[in-house]
């Protein structure tokens, strides 16, 4: 192995590290009941929302930050965080052309030109810039199909009855420390409702982006697929370079009614910190889906390459008979990144089925943990689960950990668990280099091959992006 090559690669800077200058409307640092009220007021929310936020806040005060994950970080000062920041609206936006040029330029730099996406990729983009949605495209096409896809703020105003019915129905405000905090202070996010029998005519996509300095991000996403409906939703993130650690505590709730299916794909590329472990996003996310009706299906696919700390367990509650839950994950921890991620599959309905494919890659000083729970309730006759957890180590200073937890209360169920850990081989690298590939390309090829089962689950444009992202994120991890 040519160590100099590896060094050069390792020294590459985070590609998306820049910040743009948009005037922000902020609430002063700190958290109190008044701040919660102020957020709700700024967003002109109905009283049921404020009540819900306050209940969450009061409950949060009784909770302790969890310490069971394989991640280590200095204590977070929750009074030293700005809980609300919105780009100042200059005027009401009728089309993409009217979006703040600064904002648009930022997306251009990220390689996400909205107008091009609009024309070329048939993807509706609800761009979350800081905490408020500034642009929504394809609203018309979606509207004709009866699909509601809007910012959470708009949903609060336009579809309060749906929110009141489904908000917190999968992740209650009491769920966990970070989800509860989110429930109290979340600023915006996306809401999606697919009516009965409707197949969403396009893939839905939201690009999240942390921008204003010291702003914690508390996004909330709620997707409801009514009976027989189906939707594919893409979430992708990049964040500008920062020295201070930034807290991100999002909540995603999915509800699939009978025969409905939701495919939720994520590429997470928040700023991971520099090569010495300085800075980076703390990403504490709660994602859960409920297969509420029979034969419903929820599929999570995630590619986690960013953040200093990832704490994330996209899960499925398989309530409906014959419902299906899937979790496909690639998590990469390079330099000093720490990832503790996995899933929970809770089988309640009869003949429910779940699949877990987890690929963890550790490089540099990175630490990667898979944490999974498969629970087969007494009622879940004929339930089946297959889990496969593979770890790939690049270098000798990184770590891979696996914490599978199986809880089976029904004897007619089948649960399988496979796990492997391997080191990227000098023989593999030499083989590829002998065929003319550079070390960088060889490592990228081997790792992308390792991740293939998961990448195959991504929508095509995301799969291409995932490939590139792996190559960028991996840099230099072999020695």
């Amino acid at each position, binding site marked *: 192995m040519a160590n100099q090559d590896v060094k050069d690669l390792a020294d590459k800077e985070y590609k998306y590290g820049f910040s743009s200058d948009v005037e922000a409307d902020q609430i002063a640092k700190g958290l109190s009941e008044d701040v919660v009220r102020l957020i709700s007021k700024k967003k002109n929310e109905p009283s049921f929302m404020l009540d819900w936020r306050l209940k969450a806040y009061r409950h949060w005060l009784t909770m302790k930050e969890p310490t069971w994950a394989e991640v280590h970080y200095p204590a977070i000062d929750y009074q030293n965080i700005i809980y609300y920041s919105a780009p100042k609206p200059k005027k009401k936006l009728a089309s993409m052309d009217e979006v703040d040029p600064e904002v648009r330029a930022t997306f251009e730099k990220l390689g996400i030109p909205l107008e091009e996406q609009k024309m070329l990729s048939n993807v509706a983009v609800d761009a979350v810039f800081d905490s408020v949605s500034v642009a929504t495209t394809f609203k018309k096409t979606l509207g004709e199909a009866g699909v509601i896809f809007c910012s959470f703020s708009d949903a609060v105003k336009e579809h309060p009855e749906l929110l009141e019915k489904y908000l917190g129905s999968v992740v209650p405000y009491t769920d966990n420390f970070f989800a509860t905090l989110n429930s109290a202070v979340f600023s915006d996010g996306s809401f999606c409702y697919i009516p009965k029998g409707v197949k969403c005519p396009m893939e839905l996509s939201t690009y999240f982006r942390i921008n204003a300095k010291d702003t914690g991000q508390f996004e909330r996403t709620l997707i409801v697929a009514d009976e027989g409906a189906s939707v594919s939703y893409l979430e992708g993130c990049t964040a500008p370079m920062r020295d201070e650690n930034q807290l991100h505590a999002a909540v995603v709730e999915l509800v699939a009614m009978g025969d409905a299916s939701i495919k939720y794909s994520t590429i997470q590329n928040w700023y991971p910190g520099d090569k010495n472990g300085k800075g980076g996003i703390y990403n504490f996310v709660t994602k859960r889906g409920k297969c509420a009706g029979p034969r419903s299906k929820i599929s999570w696919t995630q590619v986690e390459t960013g953040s200093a700390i990832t704490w994330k367990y996209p899960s499925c509650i398989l309530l409906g008979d014959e419902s299906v839950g899937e979790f496909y994950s690639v998590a990469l921890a390079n330099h000093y990144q720490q990832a503790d991620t996995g899933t929970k599959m809770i089988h309640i309905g009869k003949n429910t089925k779940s699949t877990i494919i987890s690929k963890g890659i550790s490089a540099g000083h990175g630490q990667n943990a898979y944490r999974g729970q498969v629970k087969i309730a007494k009622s879940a006759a004929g339930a089946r689960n297959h889990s496969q957890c593979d770890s790939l180590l690049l270098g000798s200073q990184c770590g891979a950990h696996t914490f599978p937890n199986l809880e089976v209360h029904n004897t007619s169920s089948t649960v399988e668990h496979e796990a492997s850990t391997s080191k990227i*081989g000098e023989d593999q690298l030499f*083989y590829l*280099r002998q065929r003319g590939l550079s070390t960088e390309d060889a490592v990228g090829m081997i790792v992308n091959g390792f991740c293939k089962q998961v990448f195959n689950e991504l929508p095509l444009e995301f799969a291409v992006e995932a490939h590139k992202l792996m190559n960028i994120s991996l840099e230099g991890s072999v020695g």
Partner: protein
Amino acid sequence: MLKIIDLHAKVGDKAILKGLNLTVKAGEVHAIMGPNGSGKSTLSYVLAGRSGYEVTGGSVEYEGKNLLAMEPEVRAREGVFLAFQYPVEIPGVSNKYFLKAAYNAQRKHRGEPEMDAGAFLKFVKEKAKLVEMAPAFLNRSVNEGFSGGEKKRNEILQLAVLEPKLALLDETDSGLDIDALKIVANGINRLRDPQRAVVLVTHYQRLLDYIVPDFVHVLSGGRIVKSGGKDLAVLLEKEGYGWIDAEKAAA
């Protein structure tokens, strides 16, 4: 094309090559034979640039350039190909994707435009026919779940695609049944060309029934101790390597 002068190399603390000399001209096929542990594989790896094989003396000139100063991938792009004795598996990477990446890395190196996926697929399917490989193999992961014979044939497919100037074949015949051996030999023979050279490293004479070499060398104790024509290989097969050592001791 290839000029090896007084080459010394070690693996770890162990000196393996101890003053090896060999000259290979374009258009020639050389067979290097020798008992186990004589340094045959080490020679292949040193020429391909594998880490852990440290050159301690001598020089290797390839097309007038210092081969030893090049990174392994540069040697490959310059036309040096090593068919591995034990080809490794690359799970999740399709054979055709891998071949295309390798092929285009070479083209790029030569300043030629890269070949697109459609054109390459057509090209590689033709090549697969030469080694009697079903197109399905192109979609399978590199060497994963391949039998020993399939792995060797896959090496020859790569050889056919990359069309190197200098092909080093390290025990390519080992583990092959007679039918596979013929296919592999046929693939190599097709590559014989006045512009190319082939160096076959082999323990047995068997392969040389199908690929007739211009020169046969005996490697022993890290040096070429005897060189001759095809007849030398036949003699070695019959008499073993003992007499050479005896001859050397007498000299």
